[in-house]
């Protein structure tokens, strides 16, 4: 198993958010999690990434034969877990080139691969940016600083394409995007998809799934997955909302 979440219960500030959640993802699969606001979708994403504010009450997570709870945030990232944030934070004064260059090299170091030099990295970044229709001028600005919502999301996808993760989690990447931006973002995901990597797409709306075809759709309500199936579930939700699952 590539990613296995077993009986996961999590709380934050005395509030139980995830309740005995189970989810299995194999290599090469695209999973979508849909659910109403407050159902615990973003908590799941952050727990997978290793954010430290949460208390794990029960359960376990295995990722690529690692007990995920043995790894800290950066070790998980270096193992190939990527989270595209719902609200990417601004880092004034920090340019994306050295930022991502350090990121990719810390991953390579962990994998015992040779580090990539400045020049090759700059070339890689430029070519990935143009693949994704990202203006080169955007690469000169500080990370996320002064970006529009759409720009931030595209920037997340650019980072994802550079770091080439084994498991990419997209946390409501579609929120706040117009159709053009949505196409750019979903195109990026589709280009990246191979038989060796997996995606976990968290979304509130069905719209995103018109562009990315998931293999599985899960409905999450009140901290647990209440129904799993194929893309027909997304259509059901589109028609009737989440009401019937609650």
């Amino acid at each position, binding site marked *: 198993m590539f990613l296995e979440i077993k009986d996961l219960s999590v709380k934050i500030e005395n509030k139980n958010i995830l309740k005995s959640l189970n989810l299995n993802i194999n290599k090469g699969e695209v999973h979508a999690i849909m659910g109403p606001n407050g159902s615990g979708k973003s908590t799941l994403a952050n727990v997978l*990434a*290793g*954010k430290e504010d949460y208390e794990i009450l029960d359960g376990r997570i295995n990722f690529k034969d690692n007990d995920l709870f043995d790894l*800290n*945030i*950066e070790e998980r*990232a*270096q193992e190939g877990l*990527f*989270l595209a*944030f719902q609200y*990417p*934070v601004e*880092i*004034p*004064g*920090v340019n994306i080139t*050295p*930022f*991502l260059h*350090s*990121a*990719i090299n*810390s*991953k390579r170091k962990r994998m015992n691969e040779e580090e990539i030099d400045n020049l090759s990295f700059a070339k890689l970044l430029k070519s990935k940016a143009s693949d994704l229709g990202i203006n080169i001028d955007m690469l000169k600005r*500080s990370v996320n600083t002064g970006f529009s919502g759409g720009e931030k999301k595209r920037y997340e996808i650019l*980072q994802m394409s550079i*770091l080439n993760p084994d498991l990419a989690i997209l946390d409501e990447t579609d929120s706040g995007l117009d159709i053009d931006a949505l196409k750019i973002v979903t195109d990026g995901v589709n280009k990246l998809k191979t038989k060796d990597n997996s995606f976990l797409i968290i979304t509130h709306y069905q719209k995103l799934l018109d562009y990315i075809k998931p293999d599985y759709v899960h409905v999450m309500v009140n901290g647990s997955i209440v129904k799993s199936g194929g893309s027909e579930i997304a259509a059901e939700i589109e028609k009737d909302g989440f009401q019937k699952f609650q």
Partner: protein
Amino acid sequence: MNSETLNTLDSYSKNKYKYGFVTEIDDEKPKKGLNEDTIKFISLKKNEPEWMLDWRLKAYSKWKKMKEPKWANLSFPEIDYQDIYYYSAPKGFEKKPKDLSEVDPKLIETYNKLGIPLEEQKVLAGVAVDVVFDSVSVATTYKGELEKLGIIFCSIGEAIQKHPDLIKKYLGSVIPPGDHSFSALNSAVFTDGSFVYIPEGVKCPIELSTYFRINAENTGQFERTLIIADKGSYVSYLEGCTAPKRDDNQLHAANVELIALEDAEIKYSTVQNWYPGDEDGKGGIYNFVTKRGLCAGKNSKISWTQVETGSAITWKYPSCILKGDNSIGEFYSVAITNNFQQADTGTKMTHIGKNTKSKIISKGISLGKSQNTYRGEVSFLRKADKARNYTQCDSLLVGNQCGAHTVPYIDSKNNTAVIEHEASTSKINEDQLYYCRQRGLSHEEAVSLIVNGFCKQVLQELPMEFAVEAQKLVSISLEGSVG
């Protein structure tokens, strides 16, 4: 290798202070302590004319009546001025070496460790270095090139011999010896430093640089630097400092005077990483520096950029006196304090002429148990019509045992003055750290990146090569401080 060197190497490896090695050279110094004989000894050693000795002795008599300035937010034991050596020169250096082959190979080795390109061929990158090793200038590179343009770049000692008219006219003209006790002390006992004169209309084609280094133990370091930019000229000057590690506290009290005449511009950049003391606050340099620039002529400009990461105590206020109409003063500063370091630094902008402008960008970063104070004074005198100041002071706190303080004074006697002041204090943002770490950066790398970003506005003012060094230094200063 003797035991002291071994000890030093040992402590260096424990504390990561990269430049904490000691060069074994016999040196020659007078007895400890300060009196008229000490000053006469220094003056004699430097073969100075009578008028220079008189100038020193006058400063000394002023110093005797003065007390140290007490305004700063610093605490340290009383300095025992009688327990310090005031002169230290490697033996046999009364006569300066003609070329590198005459220089003690150990000195050359020291500079190589510091990464100073002393040999001419290594200086092709475009930096002329006037190296101060303790008290005597060892070698000056690029001199020939500069002489063709009429630029004088030499040690202050040499300038006293060769250019007495310029020295008599300008030395002490911006920082009078009686200004405060540290300027009086420096005026009495200064040993070496740099002298620069850029003639009318000449743009100095390379960055001039001095690398100060304190070597002999218990030696006060009292440099004196004087830079004069004549009408319509331009010069960029770099000063970098490192000191070997010592358990005792060392005193450093330099004076730097800049004079910009009509339409002239001086850019002065400093990277200071004197030994800051260890994790328990033991040792480290006491750095009491007076730096002041005079925009004497119309349309002149003086710009100070400093990156302060070292010293146990930093007391330093590079200032501008904006006398000429339309003159401009700038101050860009990054001050990082860690462990038990204390920094009280800032600037003074004195607007005298019409349409004078000043800009202050200060970035303070506090870690560990350190205290970091920005202290600034902006004043507008009666005739400073339509003068403007913009001040921005940002403080970043890492951890919860350090302190950041901002003390701005504003004094305006002219109601057409325009003053803008912005200040912020923030803690390092957890969301930023999470974001960086999610991309695979370690906690330390993430902090270093965020802090460098925070300082960028100032670091980008540094000349290119210096900026890269400064970034590395910023990262080194943060090491081991986060967890």
